[in-house]
Protein backbone atom coordinates (compact mmCIF):
# COMPACT_ATOMS: atom_id res chain seq x y z
CA UNK A 1 0.00 0.00 0.00
CA UNK A 2 1.29 3.43 -0.85
CA UNK A 3 1.29 5.98 1.90
CA UNK A 4 0.36 9.44 0.68
CA UNK A 5 3.86 10.75 1.16
CA UNK A 6 6.85 11.33 -1.02
CA UNK A 7 10.45 11.70 -0.08
CA UNK A 8 12.20 14.90 -0.99
CA UNK A 9 15.86 15.71 -0.87
CA UNK A 10 16.31 18.68 1.38
CA UNK A 11 18.15 21.44 -0.35
CA UNK A 12 17.64 24.22 2.10
CA UNK A 13 19.18 22.53 5.10
CA UNK A 14 22.70 21.28 4.57
CA UNK A 15 22.86 19.31 7.81
CA UNK A 16 19.49 17.84 7.12
CA UNK A 17 18.53 14.23 7.28
CA UNK A 18 17.12 12.97 4.06
CA UNK A 19 15.55 9.70 3.19
CA UNK A 20 13.70 7.45 5.56
CA UNK A 21 14.90 3.89 6.04
CA UNK A 22 12.42 1.23 4.98
CA UNK A 23 12.40 -0.27 8.45
CA UNK A 24 10.81 2.94 9.65
CA UNK A 25 8.92 3.94 6.54
CA UNK A 26 6.94 0.72 6.22
CA UNK A 27 5.51 0.62 9.73
CA UNK A 28 4.91 4.37 9.56
CA UNK A 29 2.99 3.91 6.32
CA UNK A 30 0.91 1.17 7.91
CA UNK A 31 0.14 3.43 10.83
CA UNK A 32 -0.92 6.24 8.54
CA UNK A 33 -3.06 3.95 6.42
CA UNK A 34 -4.75 2.54 9.48
CA UNK A 35 -5.51 5.96 10.89
CA UNK A 36 -6.50 7.55 7.60
CA UNK A 37 -8.61 4.85 6.01
CA UNK A 38 -11.56 5.10 8.44
CA UNK A 39 -11.44 8.84 8.13
CA UNK A 40 -11.54 8.56 4.36
CA UNK A 41 -14.54 6.25 4.61
CA UNK A 42 -16.20 8.83 6.81
CA UNK A 43 -15.49 11.58 4.32
CA UNK A 44 -17.00 9.52 1.51
CA UNK A 45 -20.08 8.87 3.55
CA UNK A 46 -20.49 12.44 4.78
CA UNK A 47 -23.60 14.31 3.62
CA UNK A 48 -21.71 17.14 1.99
CA UNK A 49 -24.80 18.81 0.65
CA UNK A 50 -26.38 19.29 4.04
CA UNK A 51 -23.15 20.40 5.72
CA UNK A 52 -23.77 24.04 4.99
CA UNK A 53 -27.22 24.14 6.46
CA UNK A 54 -26.07 22.17 9.49
CA UNK A 55 -23.33 24.61 10.19
CA UNK A 56 -25.60 27.58 9.95
CA UNK A 57 -27.86 26.48 12.80
CA UNK A 58 -27.19 28.53 15.92
CA UNK A 59 -27.19 25.42 18.08
CA UNK A 60 -24.28 23.94 16.22
CA UNK A 61 -22.40 27.19 16.36
CA UNK A 62 -23.05 27.49 20.08
CA UNK A 63 -21.94 23.94 20.66
CA UNK A 64 -18.80 24.46 18.65
CA UNK A 65 -17.92 27.63 20.47
CA UNK A 66 -18.57 25.99 23.83
CA UNK A 67 -16.40 23.02 22.88
CA UNK A 68 -13.45 25.09 21.78
CA UNK A 69 -13.68 27.49 24.70
CA UNK A 70 -14.12 24.83 27.35
CA UNK A 71 -11.41 22.57 25.95
CA UNK A 72 -9.03 25.52 25.79
CA UNK A 73 -9.84 26.50 29.37
CA UNK A 74 -9.37 22.92 30.49
CA UNK A 75 -6.00 22.85 28.76
CA UNK A 76 -5.02 26.14 30.34
CA UNK A 77 -5.93 24.90 33.80
CA UNK A 78 -4.09 21.67 33.12
CA UNK A 79 -1.00 23.57 32.07
CA UNK A 80 -1.09 25.79 35.11
CA UNK A 81 -1.47 23.04 37.67
CA UNK A 82 -0.45 19.94 35.72
CA UNK A 83 3.02 20.99 34.58
CA UNK A 84 4.08 21.73 38.17
CA UNK A 85 2.73 18.35 39.19
CA UNK A 86 4.70 16.69 36.41
CA UNK A 87 7.79 18.46 37.73
CA UNK A 88 7.12 17.21 41.22
CA UNK A 89 6.73 13.68 39.90
CA UNK A 90 9.88 13.83 37.79
CA UNK A 91 12.22 15.87 39.95
CA UNK A 92 11.32 16.19 43.57
CA UNK A 93 12.33 13.88 46.39
CA UNK A 94 8.83 13.85 47.78
CA UNK A 95 7.82 10.71 49.62
CA UNK A 96 5.14 8.66 47.95
CA UNK A 97 5.82 9.85 44.43
CA UNK A 98 4.94 6.39 43.13
CA UNK A 99 1.53 6.51 44.77
CA UNK A 100 1.01 10.04 43.49
CA UNK A 101 1.79 9.02 39.96
CA UNK A 102 -0.55 6.06 40.20
CA UNK A 103 -3.33 8.35 41.40
CA UNK A 104 -2.71 10.69 38.52
CA UNK A 105 -3.14 7.91 36.00
CA UNK A 106 -6.51 6.98 37.52
CA UNK A 107 -8.67 9.33 35.43
CA UNK A 108 -6.99 7.92 32.33
CA UNK A 109 -8.46 4.51 32.96
CA UNK A 110 -11.70 5.36 34.70
CA UNK A 111 -14.60 5.04 32.27
CA UNK A 112 -15.57 8.67 31.72
CA UNK A 113 -19.14 8.19 32.88
CA UNK A 114 -17.83 6.84 36.15
CA UNK A 115 -15.48 9.80 36.27
CA UNK A 116 -18.55 12.00 35.95
CA UNK A 117 -20.23 10.14 38.79
CA UNK A 118 -17.09 10.61 40.88
CA UNK A 119 -17.14 14.33 40.15
CA UNK A 120 -20.80 14.48 41.20
CA UNK A 121 -19.98 12.64 44.41
CA UNK A 122 -17.22 15.11 45.13
CA UNK A 123 -18.47 18.43 43.77
CA UNK A 124 -22.19 17.87 43.21
CA UNK A 125 -24.90 19.53 45.23
CA UNK A 126 -24.81 16.61 47.62
CA UNK A 127 -21.12 15.95 47.14
CA UNK A 128 -18.41 15.69 49.76
CA UNK A 129 -17.14 19.14 48.97
CA UNK A 130 -20.11 20.38 47.00
CA UNK A 131 -22.64 20.12 49.82
CA UNK A 132 -20.87 22.44 52.29
CA UNK A 133 -20.08 24.78 49.41
CA UNK A 134 -23.72 24.84 48.33
CA UNK A 135 -25.11 25.44 51.79
CA UNK A 136 -22.56 28.17 52.46
CA UNK A 137 -22.73 30.07 49.18
CA UNK A 138 -25.57 28.63 47.16
CA UNK A 139 -23.11 27.85 44.40
CA UNK A 140 -23.25 24.46 42.78
CA UNK A 141 -21.29 23.25 39.79
CA UNK A 142 -23.48 20.77 37.90
CA UNK A 143 -25.40 22.09 34.89
CA UNK A 144 -23.01 25.02 34.47
CA UNK A 145 -20.33 25.71 31.92
CA UNK A 146 -17.84 25.57 34.79
CA UNK A 147 -18.80 21.94 35.24
CA UNK A 148 -18.01 21.26 31.59
CA UNK A 149 -14.54 22.70 32.06
CA UNK A 150 -14.02 20.78 35.28
CA UNK A 151 -15.12 17.49 33.74
CA UNK A 152 -12.84 17.99 30.75
CA UNK A 153 -9.96 18.99 32.98
CA UNK A 154 -10.42 15.91 35.12
CA UNK A 155 -10.36 13.60 32.15
CA UNK A 156 -7.71 15.36 30.07
CA UNK A 157 -5.15 16.68 32.54
CA UNK A 158 -3.50 13.29 33.18
CA UNK A 159 -2.51 13.16 29.51
CA UNK A 160 -0.61 16.37 29.93
CA UNK A 161 0.98 15.32 33.19
CA UNK A 162 2.26 11.95 31.99
CA UNK A 163 3.52 13.38 28.75
CA UNK A 164 5.36 16.27 30.42
CA UNK A 165 6.81 13.98 33.05
CA UNK A 166 8.29 11.83 30.29
CA UNK A 167 9.90 14.88 28.72
CA UNK A 168 11.27 16.02 32.05
CA UNK A 169 12.89 12.67 32.64
CA UNK A 170 14.51 12.68 29.22
CA UNK A 171 15.88 16.21 29.66
CA UNK A 172 19.49 16.86 30.61
CA UNK A 173 19.46 17.96 34.23
CA UNK A 174 22.92 19.46 34.15
CA UNK A 175 21.51 22.63 32.65
CA UNK A 176 19.57 23.01 35.87
CA UNK A 177 22.83 22.70 37.79
CA UNK A 178 24.28 25.45 35.67
CA UNK A 179 21.28 27.67 36.36
CA UNK A 180 21.65 27.08 40.09
CA UNK A 181 25.28 28.24 40.06
CA UNK A 182 24.06 31.41 38.37
CA UNK A 183 21.79 32.16 41.29
CA UNK A 184 18.53 30.91 39.86
CA UNK A 185 16.28 29.27 42.44
CA UNK A 186 14.12 26.27 41.71
CA UNK A 187 11.24 28.35 40.46
CA UNK A 188 13.29 30.52 38.14
CA UNK A 189 15.25 27.54 36.88
CA UNK A 190 11.99 25.80 36.15
CA UNK A 191 10.54 28.76 34.31
CA UNK A 192 13.56 29.96 32.40
CA UNK A 193 15.56 26.78 31.80
CA UNK A 194 13.60 23.58 32.30
CA UNK A 195 10.40 24.70 30.65
CA UNK A 196 12.02 26.04 27.46
CA UNK A 197 14.13 22.89 27.20
CA UNK A 198 11.07 20.63 27.30
CA UNK A 199 8.83 22.98 25.30
CA UNK A 200 8.18 20.41 22.55
CA UNK A 201 7.08 17.89 25.18
CA UNK A 202 4.78 20.40 26.85
CA UNK A 203 3.32 21.31 23.49
CA UNK A 204 2.70 17.67 22.69
CA UNK A 205 1.09 17.18 26.09
CA UNK A 206 -1.09 20.23 25.61
CA UNK A 207 -2.23 18.96 22.21
CA UNK A 208 -3.18 15.62 23.72
CA UNK A 209 -4.95 17.34 26.56
CA UNK A 210 -6.86 19.71 24.32
CA UNK A 211 -7.89 16.99 21.93
CA UNK A 212 -9.01 14.71 24.74
CA UNK A 213 -11.00 17.57 26.26
CA UNK A 214 -12.57 18.39 22.92
CA UNK A 215 -13.66 14.78 22.44
CA UNK A 216 -14.89 14.39 26.04
CA UNK A 217 -18.37 12.99 26.36
CA UNK A 218 -19.13 10.70 29.29
CA UNK A 219 -17.86 12.77 32.18
CA UNK A 220 -19.31 15.95 30.74
CA UNK A 221 -22.83 14.68 30.28
CA UNK A 222 -22.80 13.02 33.67
CA UNK A 223 -21.35 15.88 35.68
CA UNK A 224 -22.43 18.91 33.70
CA UNK A 225 -25.53 17.71 31.95
CA UNK A 226 -26.56 18.66 28.47
CA UNK A 227 -28.28 21.97 27.95
CA UNK A 228 -28.00 23.97 24.75
CA UNK A 229 -25.84 27.05 25.13
CA UNK A 230 -24.39 26.26 28.55
CA UNK A 231 -23.29 22.66 28.65
CA UNK A 232 -24.03 21.06 25.30
CA UNK A 233 -20.65 20.71 23.65
CA UNK A 234 -20.10 19.58 20.11
CA UNK A 235 -19.48 16.01 21.19
CA UNK A 236 -22.79 15.92 23.01
CA UNK A 237 -24.42 17.35 19.92
CA UNK A 238 -22.86 14.56 17.87
CA UNK A 239 -24.12 11.87 20.22
CA UNK A 240 -27.63 13.26 20.13
CA UNK A 241 -27.51 13.42 16.37
CA UNK A 242 -26.40 9.80 16.28
CA UNK A 243 -29.75 8.85 17.85
CA UNK A 244 -31.80 10.28 15.07
CA UNK A 245 -29.67 11.07 12.05
CA UNK A 246 -26.33 9.28 11.84
CA UNK A 247 -25.38 11.20 8.72
CA UNK A 248 -25.82 14.49 10.50
CA UNK A 249 -23.69 13.11 13.31
CA UNK A 250 -20.92 12.37 10.85
CA UNK A 251 -21.20 15.83 9.40
CA UNK A 252 -20.99 17.39 12.86
CA UNK A 253 -17.95 15.29 13.67
CA UNK A 254 -16.26 16.48 10.53
CA UNK A 255 -16.92 20.06 11.55
CA UNK A 256 -15.37 19.35 14.92
CA UNK A 257 -12.40 17.78 13.19
CA UNK A 258 -11.93 20.65 10.83
CA UNK A 259 -11.94 23.13 13.67
CA UNK A 260 -9.49 21.13 15.73
CA UNK A 261 -7.11 20.54 12.84
CA UNK A 262 -7.15 24.22 12.00
CA UNK A 263 -6.50 25.21 15.59
CA UNK A 264 -3.73 22.68 16.12
CA UNK A 265 -2.20 23.49 12.77
CA UNK A 266 -1.96 27.15 13.60
CA UNK A 267 -0.60 26.58 17.08
CA UNK A 268 1.88 23.92 16.11
CA UNK A 269 3.62 26.06 13.59
CA UNK A 270 4.43 28.45 16.37
CA UNK A 271 5.14 25.99 19.11
CA UNK A 272 6.88 23.05 17.67
CA UNK A 273 8.87 24.26 14.75
CA UNK A 274 11.85 25.32 16.77
CA UNK A 275 14.23 22.41 16.53
Amino acid at each position, binding site marked *: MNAPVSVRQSRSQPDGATGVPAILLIPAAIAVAFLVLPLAALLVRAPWSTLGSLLSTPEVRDALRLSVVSASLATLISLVVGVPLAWVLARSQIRGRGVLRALVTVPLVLPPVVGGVALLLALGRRGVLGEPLYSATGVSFPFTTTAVVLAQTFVAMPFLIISVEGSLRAADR*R*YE*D*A*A*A*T*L*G*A*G*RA*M*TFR*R*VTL*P*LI*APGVAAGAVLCWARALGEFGATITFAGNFPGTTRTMTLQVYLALETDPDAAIALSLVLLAVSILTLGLLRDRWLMRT
Partner: protein
Amino acid sequence: MSLSAHVVIQRGSLGVDVALEVKPGEVLALLGPNGAGKSTVLRVLAGLARPHAGLVRLDGQSLDDPAAGIRLAPHRRPIGMVFQDHLLFPHLSTVDNIAFGLRARGSSRAAAHTVAARWVARMHLSEHSSAKPRSLSGGQAQRVALARALAGDPRLLLLDEPLSALDARTKLDVRADLRHHLGDFAGATVLVTHDPVDAMALADQLVVVERGRVVQVGTPVEVSRRPRTDYVARLVGLSLLSGTAHGRAVLLDNGASVQVAEASNGPVFVAIRPASVGLYRSRPDGSPRNVWPATVAGVTPYGETLRVDLEGEVPLTADVSPEAAAELDLVLGAGVWASVKASEVAAYPA
Protein backbone atom coordinates in the same frame (compact mmCIF):
# COMPACT_ATOMS: atom_id res chain seq x y z
CA MET B 1 36.16 36.78 51.06
CA SER B 2 38.29 33.84 51.97
CA LEU B 3 37.43 30.25 51.26
CA SER B 4 38.25 27.53 53.69
CA ALA B 5 37.17 24.11 52.54
CA HIS B 6 37.63 20.54 53.51
CA VAL B 7 35.82 18.33 51.03
CA VAL B 8 35.17 14.67 51.71
CA ILE B 9 33.08 12.80 49.18
CA GLN B 10 32.94 9.38 47.59
CA ARG B 11 32.60 9.15 43.79
CA GLY B 12 32.30 5.61 42.54
CA SER B 13 35.47 3.93 43.69
CA LEU B 14 37.26 7.24 44.23
CA GLY B 15 37.37 8.69 47.72
CA VAL B 16 38.02 12.43 47.55
CA ASP B 17 39.45 14.17 50.59
CA VAL B 18 40.86 17.59 49.77
CA ALA B 19 41.44 20.63 51.98
CA LEU B 20 41.84 24.12 50.50
CA GLU B 21 42.44 27.57 51.90
CA VAL B 22 42.07 30.52 49.56
CA LYS B 23 42.62 34.02 50.89
CA PRO B 24 40.69 37.04 49.60
CA GLY B 25 41.86 37.96 46.14
CA GLU B 26 43.92 34.81 45.83
CA VAL B 27 43.78 32.37 42.95
CA LEU B 28 44.23 28.71 43.73
CA ALA B 29 44.89 26.33 40.86
CA LEU B 30 43.92 22.68 41.18
CA LEU B 31 46.14 20.47 39.12
CA GLY B 32 45.99 16.76 38.74
CA PRO B 33 45.56 13.83 36.41
CA ASN B 34 42.25 12.96 34.78
CA GLY B 35 39.82 11.51 37.25
CA ALA B 36 41.69 12.89 40.26
CA GLY B 37 38.52 14.52 41.55
CA LYS B 38 39.13 18.13 40.57
CA SER B 39 35.73 18.73 39.03
CA THR B 40 34.15 16.91 41.94
CA VAL B 41 35.75 19.35 44.38
CA LEU B 42 34.40 22.27 42.36
CA ARG B 43 30.92 20.73 42.33
CA VAL B 44 31.00 20.44 46.10
CA LEU B 45 32.12 24.05 46.47
CA ALA B 46 29.27 25.08 44.16
CA GLY B 47 26.77 23.10 46.22
CA LEU B 48 25.95 20.77 43.32
CA ALA B 49 27.32 17.74 45.11
CA ARG B 50 26.88 17.05 48.77
CA PRO B 51 30.00 16.24 50.77
CA HIS B 52 29.85 13.32 53.14
CA ALA B 53 31.97 15.13 55.67
CA GLY B 54 34.19 18.17 56.00
CA LEU B 55 33.35 21.83 55.96
CA VAL B 56 33.05 24.59 53.37
CA ARG B 57 33.23 28.14 54.69
CA LEU B 58 33.23 31.36 52.72
CA ASP B 59 34.03 34.56 54.62
CA GLY B 60 33.28 32.75 57.84
CA GLN B 61 29.86 31.60 56.69
CA SER B 62 29.31 27.84 56.50
CA LEU B 63 28.15 26.77 53.07
CA ASP B 64 28.42 23.07 53.86
CA ASP B 65 28.75 21.52 57.26
CA PRO B 66 27.40 17.99 57.09
CA ALA B 67 28.11 17.39 60.77
CA ALA B 68 25.89 20.32 61.74
CA GLY B 69 23.37 19.54 59.03
CA ILE B 70 24.12 22.82 57.29
CA ARG B 71 23.91 23.09 53.55
CA LEU B 72 23.35 26.19 51.50
CA ALA B 73 21.52 25.64 48.21
CA PRO B 74 23.67 26.28 45.12
CA HIS B 75 21.65 29.25 44.02
CA ARG B 76 22.15 30.99 47.34
CA ARG B 77 25.91 30.79 47.08
CA PRO B 78 27.62 33.89 45.75
CA ILE B 79 29.50 31.94 43.11
CA GLY B 80 30.29 31.87 39.46
CA MET B 81 31.17 28.63 37.75
CA VAL B 82 32.49 27.57 34.36
CA PHE B 83 31.76 23.95 33.59
CA GLN B 84 34.09 21.68 31.71
CA ASP B 85 31.45 21.17 29.01
CA HIS B 86 30.12 24.72 29.18
CA LEU B 87 26.42 23.86 29.60
CA LEU B 88 25.25 26.95 27.80
CA PHE B 89 21.48 27.15 27.74
CA PRO B 90 20.62 25.96 24.24
CA HIS B 91 17.50 28.09 23.92
CA LEU B 92 19.14 31.37 24.86
CA SER B 93 21.34 33.60 22.73
CA THR B 94 24.86 34.51 23.72
CA VAL B 95 23.84 37.75 25.36
CA ASP B 96 20.88 36.14 27.13
CA ASN B 97 23.08 33.36 28.44
CA ILE B 98 25.38 35.97 29.91
CA ALA B 99 22.51 38.04 31.28
CA PHE B 100 20.89 35.01 32.92
CA GLY B 101 22.81 35.16 36.17
CA LEU B 102 22.29 38.88 36.50
CA ARG B 103 18.56 38.50 36.04
CA ALA B 104 18.52 35.59 38.48
CA ARG B 105 20.22 37.75 41.07
CA GLY B 106 17.68 40.49 40.67
CA SER B 107 18.96 42.91 38.05
CA SER B 108 16.40 44.58 35.89
CA ARG B 109 16.19 43.38 32.34
CA ALA B 110 17.78 46.56 31.04
CA ALA B 111 20.62 46.57 33.57
CA ALA B 112 21.35 42.90 32.94
CA HIS B 113 21.49 43.53 29.24
CA THR B 114 23.83 46.44 29.57
CA VAL B 115 26.28 44.44 31.65
CA ALA B 116 25.94 41.39 29.42
CA ALA B 117 26.57 43.48 26.32
CA ARG B 118 29.77 44.77 27.92
CA TRP B 119 30.92 41.19 28.47
CA VAL B 120 30.02 40.27 24.92
CA ALA B 121 32.32 43.01 23.69
CA ARG B 122 35.09 42.18 26.13
CA MET B 123 35.07 38.53 25.04
CA HIS B 124 35.13 39.50 21.34
CA LEU B 125 31.74 37.95 20.81
CA SER B 126 29.93 40.92 19.34
CA GLU B 127 29.39 39.14 16.05
CA HIS B 128 27.73 36.26 17.86
CA SER B 129 25.75 38.26 20.36
CA SER B 130 22.42 36.89 19.22
CA ALA B 131 23.63 33.46 18.11
CA LYS B 132 22.35 30.34 19.84
CA PRO B 133 24.98 28.06 21.42
CA ARG B 134 24.43 25.43 18.72
CA SER B 135 25.92 27.71 16.13
CA LEU B 136 28.95 28.74 18.19
CA SER B 137 32.37 27.21 17.70
CA GLY B 138 33.98 25.46 20.65
CA GLY B 139 36.12 28.41 21.57
CA GLN B 140 33.26 30.87 21.25
CA ALA B 141 31.15 28.69 23.51
CA GLN B 142 33.88 28.64 26.11
CA ARG B 143 34.14 32.40 26.10
CA VAL B 144 30.40 32.72 26.58
CA ALA B 145 30.59 30.31 29.52
CA LEU B 146 33.38 32.34 31.03
CA ALA B 147 31.53 35.61 30.59
CA ARG B 148 28.38 34.08 32.05
CA ALA B 149 30.23 33.05 35.21
CA LEU B 150 32.06 36.34 35.61
CA ALA B 151 29.17 38.65 34.85
CA GLY B 152 27.42 37.99 38.15
CA ASP B 153 30.34 39.41 40.15
CA PRO B 154 30.64 36.33 42.31
CA ARG B 155 32.51 36.20 45.59
CA LEU B 156 33.82 32.75 44.81
CA LEU B 157 34.82 31.91 41.28
CA LEU B 158 35.03 28.29 40.19
CA LEU B 159 36.63 27.68 36.82
CA ASP B 160 36.91 24.20 35.32
CA GLU B 161 39.43 24.45 32.50
CA PRO B 162 38.21 27.84 31.37
CA LEU B 163 40.82 28.26 28.66
CA SER B 164 41.15 24.79 27.20
CA ALA B 165 39.17 25.28 23.99
CA LEU B 166 40.61 28.69 23.21
CA ASP B 167 42.98 29.21 20.34
CA ALA B 168 46.47 30.51 21.02
CA ARG B 169 45.67 34.13 20.27
CA THR B 170 42.38 34.24 22.11
CA LYS B 171 43.89 32.29 24.98
CA LEU B 172 46.49 35.00 25.41
CA ASP B 173 43.85 37.69 25.35
CA VAL B 174 41.40 35.89 27.58
CA ARG B 175 44.13 34.82 29.95
CA ALA B 176 45.33 38.40 30.22
CA ASP B 177 41.76 39.57 30.67
CA LEU B 178 41.11 36.93 33.28
CA ARG B 179 44.33 37.85 35.04
CA HIS B 180 43.25 41.42 34.98
CA HIS B 181 39.83 40.59 36.29
CA LEU B 182 41.22 38.28 38.96
CA GLY B 183 43.63 41.00 39.95
CA ASP B 184 40.70 43.34 40.60
CA PHE B 185 38.66 40.56 42.09
CA ALA B 186 38.31 40.68 45.84
CA GLY B 187 36.95 37.14 46.13
CA ALA B 188 38.54 33.76 46.09
CA THR B 189 39.13 31.84 42.88
CA VAL B 190 39.56 28.12 42.39
CA LEU B 191 40.77 27.19 38.95
CA VAL B 192 41.15 23.74 37.43
CA THR B 193 43.63 23.63 34.61
CA HIS B 194 45.91 21.19 32.86
CA ASP B 195 48.05 23.87 31.36
CA PRO B 196 51.09 24.73 33.47
CA VAL B 197 51.31 28.05 31.70
CA ASP B 198 47.82 28.95 32.88
CA ALA B 199 48.72 27.94 36.39
CA MET B 200 51.93 29.94 36.29
CA ALA B 201 50.23 32.97 34.80
CA LEU B 202 47.12 33.00 36.94
CA ALA B 203 47.60 31.17 40.21
CA ASP B 204 49.07 32.33 43.49
CA GLN B 205 48.84 28.91 44.96
CA LEU B 206 48.94 25.50 43.38
CA VAL B 207 47.32 22.41 44.85
CA VAL B 208 48.18 19.15 43.18
CA VAL B 209 45.55 16.44 43.58
CA GLU B 210 46.07 12.80 42.72
CA ARG B 211 43.53 10.03 43.34
CA GLY B 212 41.43 12.34 45.45
CA ARG B 213 44.27 13.42 47.78
CA VAL B 214 46.44 16.50 47.93
CA VAL B 215 50.01 15.51 47.09
CA GLN B 216 51.66 18.90 46.89
CA VAL B 217 50.93 22.50 47.77
CA GLY B 218 52.95 25.58 47.00
CA THR B 219 53.43 28.56 44.77
CA PRO B 220 53.61 27.73 41.07
CA VAL B 221 57.32 28.42 41.04
CA GLU B 222 58.00 26.22 44.08
CA VAL B 223 55.98 23.40 42.66
CA SER B 224 57.51 23.63 39.22
CA ARG B 225 61.04 23.83 40.60
CA ARG B 226 60.62 21.12 43.16
CA PRO B 227 57.95 18.67 41.99
CA ARG B 228 57.19 15.95 44.48
CA THR B 229 55.37 13.52 42.23
CA ASP B 230 56.00 12.14 38.83
CA TYR B 231 52.80 13.74 37.56
CA VAL B 232 53.93 17.25 38.45
CA ALA B 233 57.44 16.61 37.20
CA ARG B 234 56.03 15.56 33.84
CA LEU B 235 53.74 18.53 33.81
CA VAL B 236 56.63 20.97 34.19
CA GLY B 237 58.86 18.92 31.94
CA LEU B 238 61.30 17.47 34.45
CA SER B 239 62.55 13.96 35.12
CA LEU B 240 61.98 13.08 38.77
CA LEU B 241 64.05 10.61 40.75
CA SER B 242 63.99 9.87 44.45
CA GLY B 243 66.75 8.67 46.73
CA THR B 244 68.82 9.41 49.81
CA ALA B 245 71.42 12.16 49.90
CA HIS B 246 74.83 11.58 51.44
CA GLY B 247 76.56 14.89 50.99
CA ARG B 248 76.76 15.68 47.27
CA ALA B 249 75.97 12.15 46.24
CA VAL B 250 72.43 10.83 46.08
CA LEU B 251 71.86 7.11 46.22
CA LEU B 252 68.73 6.48 44.16
CA ASP B 253 66.09 4.01 45.36
CA ASN B 254 67.01 1.72 42.48
CA GLY B 255 70.67 1.56 43.44
CA ALA B 256 72.22 4.07 41.01
CA SER B 257 74.01 7.16 42.22
CA VAL B 258 73.72 10.83 41.15
CA GLN B 259 76.11 13.69 41.85
CA VAL B 260 74.30 16.90 42.75
CA ALA B 261 75.29 20.55 43.14
CA GLU B 262 74.51 21.12 46.79
CA ALA B 263 75.28 18.88 49.74
CA SER B 264 72.48 17.55 51.93
CA ASN B 265 71.55 14.47 53.88
CA GLY B 266 68.49 12.21 54.10
CA PRO B 267 65.69 11.40 51.68
CA VAL B 268 65.58 13.72 48.70
CA PHE B 269 63.97 14.21 45.30
CA VAL B 270 66.23 14.78 42.34
CA ALA B 271 64.94 16.76 39.34
CA ILE B 272 66.69 16.89 35.98
CA ARG B 273 65.67 19.05 32.99
CA PRO B 274 65.59 17.29 29.64
CA ALA B 275 67.61 20.09 28.04
CA SER B 276 70.49 19.52 30.43
CA VAL B 277 70.88 15.90 29.47
CA GLY B 278 73.58 15.21 26.87
CA LEU B 279 73.56 12.04 24.76
CA TYR B 280 76.65 10.31 23.35
CA ARG B 281 77.35 7.18 21.35
CA SER B 282 80.31 6.25 23.47
CA ARG B 283 81.11 7.05 27.11
CA PRO B 284 82.08 10.73 27.29
CA ASP B 285 85.19 11.73 29.18
CA GLY B 286 84.37 15.37 29.86
CA SER B 287 83.48 17.27 32.98
CA PRO B 288 79.99 15.94 33.72
CA ARG B 289 80.19 13.70 36.71
CA ASN B 290 76.93 11.90 36.01
CA VAL B 291 77.25 9.42 33.19
CA TRP B 292 74.93 6.46 32.68
CA PRO B 293 74.28 3.95 29.92
CA ALA B 294 70.68 3.98 28.62
CA THR B 295 68.38 2.61 25.93
CA VAL B 296 66.12 4.72 23.73
CA ALA B 297 62.49 3.96 24.67
CA GLY B 298 60.79 6.59 22.54
CA VAL B 299 61.42 9.67 20.43
CA THR B 300 58.84 12.41 20.03
CA PRO B 301 59.30 15.59 18.05
CA TYR B 302 58.60 18.47 20.34
CA GLY B 303 58.69 21.80 18.65
CA GLU B 304 62.04 22.04 16.97
CA THR B 305 63.67 19.60 19.31
CA LEU B 306 63.23 15.89 19.79
CA ARG B 307 62.26 14.54 23.18
CA VAL B 308 63.96 11.21 23.87
CA ASP B 309 62.69 8.86 26.57
CA LEU B 310 65.47 6.77 28.05
CA GLU B 311 65.39 3.54 30.01
CA GLY B 312 68.26 2.29 32.15
CA GLU B 313 69.55 2.54 35.70
CA VAL B 314 68.38 6.13 35.70
CA PRO B 315 65.17 6.73 33.73
CA LEU B 316 65.50 10.10 32.04
CA THR B 317 64.15 12.33 29.33
CA ALA B 318 66.51 14.21 27.07
CA ASP B 319 65.90 16.98 24.55
CA VAL B 320 68.15 16.87 21.51
CA SER B 321 68.27 18.73 18.22
CA PRO B 322 67.19 16.87 15.06
CA GLU B 323 70.77 17.10 13.75
CA ALA B 324 72.15 15.47 16.91
CA ALA B 325 69.45 12.82 16.75
CA ALA B 326 70.37 11.94 13.18
CA GLU B 327 74.06 11.78 14.07
CA LEU B 328 73.37 9.59 17.12
CA ASP B 329 71.02 7.37 15.11
CA LEU B 330 68.42 7.44 17.88
CA VAL B 331 66.24 4.53 16.81
CA LEU B 332 64.09 2.67 19.30
CA GLY B 333 66.23 0.35 21.42
CA ALA B 334 69.53 2.02 20.51
CA GLY B 335 72.12 2.13 23.28
CA VAL B 336 73.48 5.57 24.27
CA TRP B 337 75.33 7.29 27.09
CA ALA B 338 73.52 10.02 28.98
CA SER B 339 75.39 12.64 30.97
CA VAL B 340 74.29 15.52 33.20
CA LYS B 341 76.44 18.06 34.93
CA ALA B 342 76.16 17.91 38.69
CA SER B 343 75.47 21.64 38.69
CA GLU B 344 72.34 21.04 36.59
CA VAL B 345 70.89 18.56 39.05
CA ALA B 346 68.59 19.91 41.77
CA ALA B 347 68.08 17.91 44.95
CA TYR B 348 65.59 18.86 47.63
CA PRO B 349 64.22 17.16 50.73
CA ALA B 350 61.53 14.56 50.06
